[in-house]
């Protein structure tokens, strides 16, 4: 184990740490758990408000650290109450949200396809059917998602999807040349 283990980390100290992977960050120690060898740091120590980054770092990855200063205990022990139900609710909400977002991701599709899907979804109702993009429930666009792959639906809808697809492809080409 590297030397980090043998040190006593005092709560509230502000450290600048460099990891073995090359990452560097600063933060204020919230706690250090010896059994699991986890150091909990709070970054953005000077920032007010609730938006601070929290880092749980495995101490054995610490290559080097510098003590920048000492601060107060960032955790106000009087306020440390855990509201389990609300946390549960929060998690559920987050999961739901993530699921919704995941819907838009095709399974086993290329990222090019995913980009096209995202572009189409901006203006048209789309969903995945395996690796086929289904637009407006009627028009299907299959791999490799070129205008000629557009099939189905009324002629008008078909035309519209073709056009949108062309334009989106052009735009994607401009943004990331060489990929499309």
């Amino acid at each position, binding site marked *: 184990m590297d030397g980090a283990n043998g040190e006593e980390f005092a709560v509230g100290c502000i450290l600048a740490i460099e990891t073995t992977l090359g990452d560097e960050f600063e933060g204020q120690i919230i706690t250090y*758990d010896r059994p699991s060898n986890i150091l909990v740091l709070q970054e953005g120590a000077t920032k007010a408000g609730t938006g601070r980054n929290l880092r*749980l770092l495995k101490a054995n*990855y610490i290559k080097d650290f510098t003590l920048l200063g000492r601060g107060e205990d960032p955790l106000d022990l009087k306020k440390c109450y855990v509201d389990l139900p609300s*946390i549960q609710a929060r998690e559920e909400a987050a*999961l739901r949200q993530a699921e919704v977002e995941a819907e838009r991701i095709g399974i086993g599709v*290329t990222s090019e396809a995913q980009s096209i899907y995202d572009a189409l979804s901006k203006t048209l109702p789309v969903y995945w059917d395996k690796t086929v993009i289904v637009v407006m429930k009627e028009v299907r666009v299959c791999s490799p998602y070129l205008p000629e792959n557009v099939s189905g639906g009324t002629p008008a809808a078909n035309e519209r999807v073709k056009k949108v697809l062309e334009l989106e492809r052009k735009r994607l080409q401009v943004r990331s040349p060489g990929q499309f």
Partner: protein
Amino acid sequence: MNLQQAVPPRSSANGFGRRRVDRETGARMDDNRMHSGKPTSPNFGLANGSKVGGVAGPSHDRLIYIMTCLVGQRVEVLVKNGSIISGIFHSANADKDFGVVLKMAQVIKDGSIKGQKPFNDTVKKPQTMIIPSRELVHILAKDASLSSDDGHAREKRNDLLIDSVISHPHHVEVERELERWIPDEDVPACSELENIFDGTWSRKWDQFETNETLFGVKSTFNEELYTTKLEKGPQMRELEIEASRIAREIEGEETHDHHLAEERGIYFHEDFDLDEESRYSAVRREADGGRYEENENSFLDAHNMETFGDSFGSAVSRSYSEVLSKQVSSESLASSTCLSADEDSQIPADKDAHVSGFTDHVTWPSSDSLVKSSLFMDEKNRLDDKMTKDQDAEKILLNECRDRIISEEAQTSKSEDVHPSTHLKGLSPSAVTYDPPSSDQINKCPAGESSDSAISGKLTSANEAVNTSLRPGCSTSSTSEHVGSGSVSGGPLSPSSSVGSLSSEKSTLNPNAKEFKLNPNAKSFMPSASLRQHTPASDGSFYYANNISAAPHMHGISMGIGIGPTFGGHHPVVYSPQAAPLQSPQAYIHPNGPLYGQQMILGQPRPLYYMPTYPAEMPYKGRNF
């Protein structure tokens, strides 16, 4: 144990070394299998976490606390090979090793492959991932909330859907950097577009013709459908010339309105201070009539400056002051400083008195024929005719009146301006409206020559009233020039010319404002509720509901009844149509005051007028009709 349940058995931890989903679906299936057995609810057994080793109680507790706080939040886990997995923190094993479980997790940065994400990297569906302790390097929770309070607040904040949340910006790719458009080299045709409208009215280009040529579109446009048909007769040419002249005059006028100036191509030298916003977008706020005043003031000042130079103003002002102090009767002074114009009828009466008074005091130079005060009375009638005053005439008068100060009834005097009018002229209340002379006439100033009689007043014995008295309310002309007549150095001034401005110093009063005269017939102003309590009803009107007036003899009482509920909350808003406007509005009722006591005042059933007085700080912006 609870803890263990959440985490797959250690033995299979190795199997989860592949927590990073491979391209192959096989691994994915393994993961799926594994996580299906997990309970969806977070495992809060952590809170009961065993204290391995016994020591580090408080520290461990803190860790547990933090981990609990993190549940449900999105975290990024950095693993040994450099990959970053993002997911929702579900649970962790706080025992000896620190393995975490992330739900809906996916690899967002692949550490094993250096460089960009491969082109044909397939997109993975997020799933639950377990990161064993030995793979774990760190867990990063962005914007983590550590206390329950914060969490609630944040959740409440998240409940407010903002546009960016709704539109899912993370789906949108970043737009490219915008560059300013630079026309290409080989775009020659566009040059035509620039000068096609150079001529303000180029009759050479017919849009309909062009359209038809280019696109074959036949137009049915008939200009006369939308505008008056021009009679193209023999007079046409002359009319056109006249119209152009007038147009030129107008466009050439000096203006201090920045927008107008810009249109006309006049650029102020101080314009650099104005940024785009004040030039094109901001609302310019000035007092009522202030715009006119400002324009006129500056306009006249400009003229004055042009003709007399800078020193003139001060000189005249000084002389004004002197004379004023000597001669001005309180009335005239008051009136002179009073910038509000009054009804015409009032003015002449006052002025006449003043004028006659003045003539006693002042010996006015009569360079030319100056109309005597006796004639003044007649002027009133003629005043309506006096309209325009040419600039040259003004100049003449100014020159002559230079030494004279004309104290004039206020009406016409515009206190701010230093007006060269030194000649006391009979006030012509009906005022001669002074139209701002066109600029091209400014310099025409034949000395000693009486230009329009109308203008110079003194000039002709025609008793043309000097139009110096300018009705301030009349807008355009203003002030002062009043000058009108007056030969400063000359002989006795004829009071026929009305004198304009008195004080040379600028005052804050608005010379164009009409003098406030109580109009008993005016509609009452309904103040806001906040004013209601404090305004004693002075004479004014006050409207009450229809039903109240139905019982005449019970007037007072019904008033009371009606008023109580009606006006308890706010002022009456219903006007009783059957009530005739009150001629002498002395009756008033305080809505909150004792009503019965004032029955006597009410007398006949008639509408009571209630006009609240305004707090001092509230300027009366209404109009008296």
